[in-house]
């Protein structure tokens, strides 16, 4: 059970691994493309910002859109990395890129604003100058100075120009000085010119301020490490891909290990199963053996029970000769008494003496004969009840029939006449006791069957040798016969027509087995009203043992019952 579970688990694990290895990481394979798109968008944005700074962008739509597209792409990538477990290690790099991007976006806004201011202030400068020229006093030298306001404005513009070209601190100071001078002179001007000058001054201030700012922003822009951040994402991605490959590889290794384990566990399972089967087979054989033993004992006990049933009859059989042996002995005893001796001695008649001697002789013979009968019966019973493993010996069927008839005589005496039609069949090889058991069983059955008839029956025992070298034995009776619906069942174990307590129903089935073991057949033929014939055929085994008696041959035992 554990093995099966293990195999199932390993197989499942292997399957899962296979699936894992096979399934491509969708997000991971697509992410590099997105990264490329991201960098393209950033490059585009950079171009737009540059064109803005160079003054070649007609408006800010392009640069703003480029920035927004880039941010949208980054949002998309963040969402993907956020929702995908395998891309989680990229998050920090993406975050730092985002921060760099946000800084850049902020700078871009500043650049846009600053550039617009710078441009506008510069645009207006010429008109400031032309406005100032409307006032004649701008061309007049100022009180206390050699300069005219227009000259001052020119100086301012030149200083601003120089500064614009090269925004160094020195030039910045130059510009500041000039502006300060204009401011200080404002009070001396007419309101109109002072106004113009004031505007002029603020525009120069804006230009210089925004020029410096523009520089600062440009530098700040180049300082932002979006490139490095994108590179970081790229390298993280590459290492992620590598680790993915490696993990796939290690998965494959694990898969190999699991596969090996699977093979091992299958082998283990197979060996376990085969061991179990071996055990089962052994147990099975033992059980069979036990079964045989039990059947043997069953047979034995049925034999004994059959025998038991015959005890009454047999007792009677024994009693009869025993009684008259006893009578003979008592007579002899009486003859031996002194009274009788005296009466005999008194009588001098020789013929009477001779008669008395013959009478004694006859009595003694009868007695011996009776004893002989008893002894035969007992020997027969002893033979019959002996448990033996059925050693094969040569056995005379006709003798067996006769001994069976002898044992069954009490049951047959008042029931039927016995007819023997023997054909002088040769001896066969088989288990004598078992075959005797069979014959006795059949004879007893016949007797029981004929018992119910009103008339005296006839039991015919027939033997003959058939053409195929088998011995055929018929046990015929003219009892009531066996009805058709029962005749097929008579050999079934535990099948009996007798009431409970009389008969086990095992008799005929055991006979069947015994005959089968001998390689023979037993069959029944019956006609209700006419009678029944049980026919046994037994093969005639040609071998005969050297002595013919029960010397056990090692490999020749027929088991008591068939397997």
């Amino acid at each position, binding site marked *: 059970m554990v093995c099966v579970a293990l195999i199932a688990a390993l197989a499942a694990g292997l399957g899962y691994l296979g699936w894992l290895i096979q399934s491509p990481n969708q997000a991971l394979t697509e992410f590099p493309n997105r990264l490329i798109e991201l960098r393209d968008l950033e490059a585009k944005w950079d171009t737009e910002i540059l064109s803005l700074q160079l*003054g*070649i*962008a*007609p*408006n*800010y*739509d*392009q640069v*703003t*859109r480029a920035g*927004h597209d880039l*941010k949208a792409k980054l949002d998309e990538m963040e969402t993907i990395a956020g929702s995908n477990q395998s891309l989680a290690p990229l998050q920090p790099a993406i975050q730092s890129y985002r921060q760099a991007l946000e800084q850049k976006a*902020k*700078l871009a*806004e*500043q650049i*846009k*604003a*600053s*550039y*617009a*201011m*710078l*441009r*506008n*202030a*510069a*645009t*207006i*400068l*010429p*008109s400031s*100058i*032309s*406005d100032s*020229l409307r006032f004649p006093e701008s*061309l007049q030298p100022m009180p206390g100075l050699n300069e*005219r306001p*227009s*000259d001052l404005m*020119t100086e301012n*513009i*030149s200083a601003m*120009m120089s500064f*614009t*070209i090269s925004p160094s601190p020195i030039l910045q100071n130059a510009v500041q000085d000039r502006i300060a001078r204009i401011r200080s002179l404002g009070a001396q001007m007419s309101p109109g010119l002072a*106004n113009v000058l004031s*505007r002029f001054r*603020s*525009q120069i201030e*804006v230009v210089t301020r925004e020029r410096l700012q523009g520089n600062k922003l440009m530098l700040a822009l180049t300082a932002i490490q979006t490139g490095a951040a994108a590179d970081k994402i790229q390298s993280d991605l590459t290492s992620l891909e590598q680790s993915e490959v490696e993990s796939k590889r290690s998965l494959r290794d694990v898969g190999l290990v699991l596969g090996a384990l699977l093979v091992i566990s299958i082998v283990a399972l197979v060996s376990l199963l085969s061991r179990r089967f071996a055990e089962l087979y052994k147990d099975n054989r033992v059980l069979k053996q036990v079964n045989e033993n039990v059947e043997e004992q069953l047979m034995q006990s049925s034999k004994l029970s059959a025998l038991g049933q015959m005890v009454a009859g047999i007792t009677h059989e024994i009693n009869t000769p025993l009684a008259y042996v006893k009578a003979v002995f008592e007579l002899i005893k009486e003859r031996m008494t002194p009274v009788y001796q005296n009466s005999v001695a008194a009588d001098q008649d020789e013929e009477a003496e001779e008669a008395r001697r013959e009478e004694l002789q006859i009595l003694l013979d009868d007695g011996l004969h009776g004893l002989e009968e008893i002894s035969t019966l007992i020997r027969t019973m002893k033979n019959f009840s002996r448990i033996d493993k059925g050693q094969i010996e040569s056995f005379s069927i006709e003798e067996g029939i006769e001994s069976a008839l002898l044992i069954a005589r009490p049951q047959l005496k008042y029931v039927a006449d016995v007819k023997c039609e023997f054909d002088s069949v040769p001896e066969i090889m088989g288990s004598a006791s078992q075959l005797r058991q069979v014959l006795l069983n059949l004879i007893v059955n016949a007797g029981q069957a004929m018992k119910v008839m009103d008339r005296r029956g006839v039991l015919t025992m027939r033997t003959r040798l058939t053409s195929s070298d088998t011995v055929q034995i018929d046990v015929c009776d003219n009892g009531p016969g066996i009805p058709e619906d029962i005749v097929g069942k008579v050999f079934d174990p535990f099948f009996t027509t007798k009431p409970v307590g009389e008969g086990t129903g095992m008799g005929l089935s055991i006979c069947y087995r015994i005959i089968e073991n001998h390689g023979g057949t037993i069959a029944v033929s019956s006609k209700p009203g006419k009678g029944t014939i049980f026919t046994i055929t037994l093969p005639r085994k040609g071998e005969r043992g050297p002595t013919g008696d029960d010397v056990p041959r090692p490999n020749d035992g027929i088991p008591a019952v068939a397997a």
Partner: protein
Amino acid sequence: MGRLDQNASTCLTKVRGGMKPLWILSARQFIGFSIAGGLAGCFLLPPGDFARTALADETNLSPPIEATGTQPITIEPISPVPLQVELDTKKVDLGHALFNDSRLSSGNGLSCASCHIPQHALADGRKVSTGISGNLMVTNTLTLFNVALNQMLGWNGQTTSLQKQAEGVVKVRMGGNWDEIVSTLRADSGMSAAFGEIYKDGLTRDNVINALVEYEKSLDTPNAPFDRYLRGDQNAISAEAKAGYQLFKDYGCASCHQGVNVGGNMLEVFGIFGKPAAAANGSSTPGSAKDTGISDDRPVFRVPSLRNVQYTGPYFHDGSVSTLPEAIGFMAEYQLGRDISQDEISKIEAFLDSLTGEYQGKPLGHL
């Protein structure tokens, strides 16, 4: 070399006629002006723009290439509104219904249409709108016409997606609770059915916003007279408007009010020259963009769109200026540092009027 040189030569003529010793100085002036002009032209101004400004006959604008992602440089700073937008009409109608639905304010009785009124060019004609419980809002309501053409939204320009803007405004300005709104709308079987027809996952917050945004995208006003002019119809606008456009560019208004929506794509300082009253609170002015790095002491706002501007007054973030000529003067003063004449203001106004487009085929003035 341009206008600068024209001025210079005028000066020279004037000067030469008068004082002899001064021609040396005038030469210096001439040099200075030339340098100024030249350098200004080369380093600070788009050369193309300058050429256009000086040499081009005002009536001979060549049709601009419309700005797209991959096209080369366009010539004009303003490009026309696209004539066609691909939209799902079912979603637009649904969005329109939601636009007028006060259930989006979770019981505050406000809908988008409360402040974006069609008769007022989808603004409301007030300085500042009243919002939840009659409390005044912070900034002037902006028009929703052409809102999809803006790359930055709101007075502070910090929102860049229409979806985020819709989501936020429902919560903040209308006091709506999105979960409550969704469940209320779901209980409306007609609304649920309408959503079920269009969206696979039915009525969700994202789908409500999606429908609203689709409607917003349908609010473009193409075919303004100026757009037709840009496309080559020389008679689309009056000569005054053309002159106004020229001034618009020359004076630098077009530095900030540019792009397809004549604004809406950058942040700028409000009050570059001087300090207007509306910028009295400096960089913490409510509604302004904070922490942009653009200015420490002055408020920074997103540059608004000037399309349909004749109908979207009052102007500026606090609605403090009610007429367009005033606004133009204001901008010239505080953004450009210029003193412009009434005549120039009228020309620019004529130009700005020509930016009014058509909604569903009808010019806005006739809605």
